[in-house]
């Protein structure tokens, strides 16, 4: 975490991310012990919402491009202990190419944060 601080409240973080992505197709490009697919599913169960449509994070290449095209939201950010290694540069390039904008940022520590990117509104309308 880059500090000797206590771990943050994982329930609250999962709820806040779920409030943004809701049940829309979401690429979980950053997952670790703090924020992961299970915490999202559990947050949905706890709040009585529909389970989020989580896309498995492909590491790189065409699969990553395909996932970025299908996703309406992308959960990214820095972590020291990721569960899935994603090519960060390819992801950044994909986010820029698809003009995804950050809509939620949660700073955990100097070396750890969570950012949720959303597809542009026109893009979202066209896939409805």
């Amino acid at each position, binding site marked *: *975490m*880059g*500090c*000797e*601080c*206590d*771990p*943050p*409240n*994982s*329930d*609250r973080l999962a709820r806040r991310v779920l409030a943004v992505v809701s049940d829309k197709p979401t690429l979980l*490009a*950053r997952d*670790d*012990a*703090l924020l*992961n*697919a*299970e*915490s999202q*599913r*559990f947050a949905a*169960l*706890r709040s009585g919402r529909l389970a989020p449509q989580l896309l498995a994070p492909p590491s790189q290449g065409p699969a990553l491009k395909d996932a970025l095209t299908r996703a309406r939201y992308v959960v*990214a*950010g*820095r*972590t*020291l*202990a*990721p*569960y*899935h*290694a*994603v*090519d*960060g*540069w390819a*992801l*950044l390039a994909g*986010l820029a190419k698809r003009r995804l904008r*950050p809509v939620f*940022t949660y*700073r955990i*520590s100097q070396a*750890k*944060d969570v*950012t949720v990117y959303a597809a542009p509104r026109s893009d979202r309308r066209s896939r409805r």
Partner: protein
Amino acid sequence: MGTTTRSSRRAAAIACAVALVAFLVVLAARWQHGFANVDDYLYARQAHEFARALANGPAALVEAWRAFGQNAPLVPTLAAPLAAIDPSPHLLTLAHLPFVLLLAASCTVLPRALGLAGARLALAAAAAASAPPLLAWAAMFHFAFASAALTVAALAAYMLSRGLRSPAASALFGLAIGLLCVARVIGPLYASALIAAVAGDQLTRHGDWRERLRGALVACSSAVLVATPWWAAAGGSALRYLTTAGYGESPFTHEAGLLERARERFDWTTTETGWLVACVVLALAALGLARALRNDRSRRPALLMAITALCAMTGLATSTNAGTGFALPAIALAVCLAAFAVAAPPARRSGRPAAGLRGLRALCWRVSLTSAAGLPCSMRYLRQASGSDRSGSSAHPDSSRRAQRWAASATHLTATD
């Protein structure tokens, strides 16, 4: 005999009380942090589904078993009544309570079989049952603690059965083995280690073979009766998971030779336990084993404990999947031997204990007390699980190794840098 039983019961009561208090301290620390990791959430959802299935009858429960076929059902099923009230993993950790008491009771039987009695037995049992390397795992809604408690309980039941001569204790031994097989998907590995040690013990015994054969049949029947329903319903996916996650190509495995695997297993276990505590436990366990081997009465139980732990570690070393608390049953047995070393009366050789031995014991005592005083700090696992520990240790299988690799190339993904 009556006095011995009374003193054993008193020791068990003291051990249970101490373990209960320590467990409550660990729980309070966990609830204060409000942190749950990936396993907590997964098993909490499983417990919630089991609670819903239980309300709809046995057929629905079998369906739920199949749906969560990669995860053993014992702990989530025990937690299901709690999950019906609130599926929060923070609350569901209360389901560990029976296992805390079972471990405390079993930790009384093992040192007693090694020859301890009275206050020394109570001290050893209380120390083993509340040892931070074990109890810290009870803070997590996970299967490792239950597996460790059941492994120790199985061995305790075997010792009570006097080499499978007592049918009632043999049935308990079988019951513990059966529960162990449904407590964790790799439970059969621990059960195999126990069976290997018990088989060796049986082969070196003489006489009463009819009683012992009857006891073995009783134990097998109760184990099969308990474990069969779940393995029949979900065994296919459990075995598939075991082979792919343990030996196949997965993010959790990698190519390594046999010696390299053994070294990695030892390294990972000591990292999970904490190097200082692991070294103390290992030194004391070796001391306890050496002392127990000198005595005719304690030789057999000590060998049983050591061989079970060794077989379990050897089995685990066949896979490169580091896992989460995989070695905890072996650690539990090592802790029991260590507690025996601490509590046993000084060995008398030519009237005086060896000065070096006394010195080592005094040093280990000091380090043990220091680590025991930091029991709430054993919530260290929470920091590790959240990745805050720079050593990269994590509660997720093998995430440490990947974390180390990944941290080296520290990819920054956000636009907020």
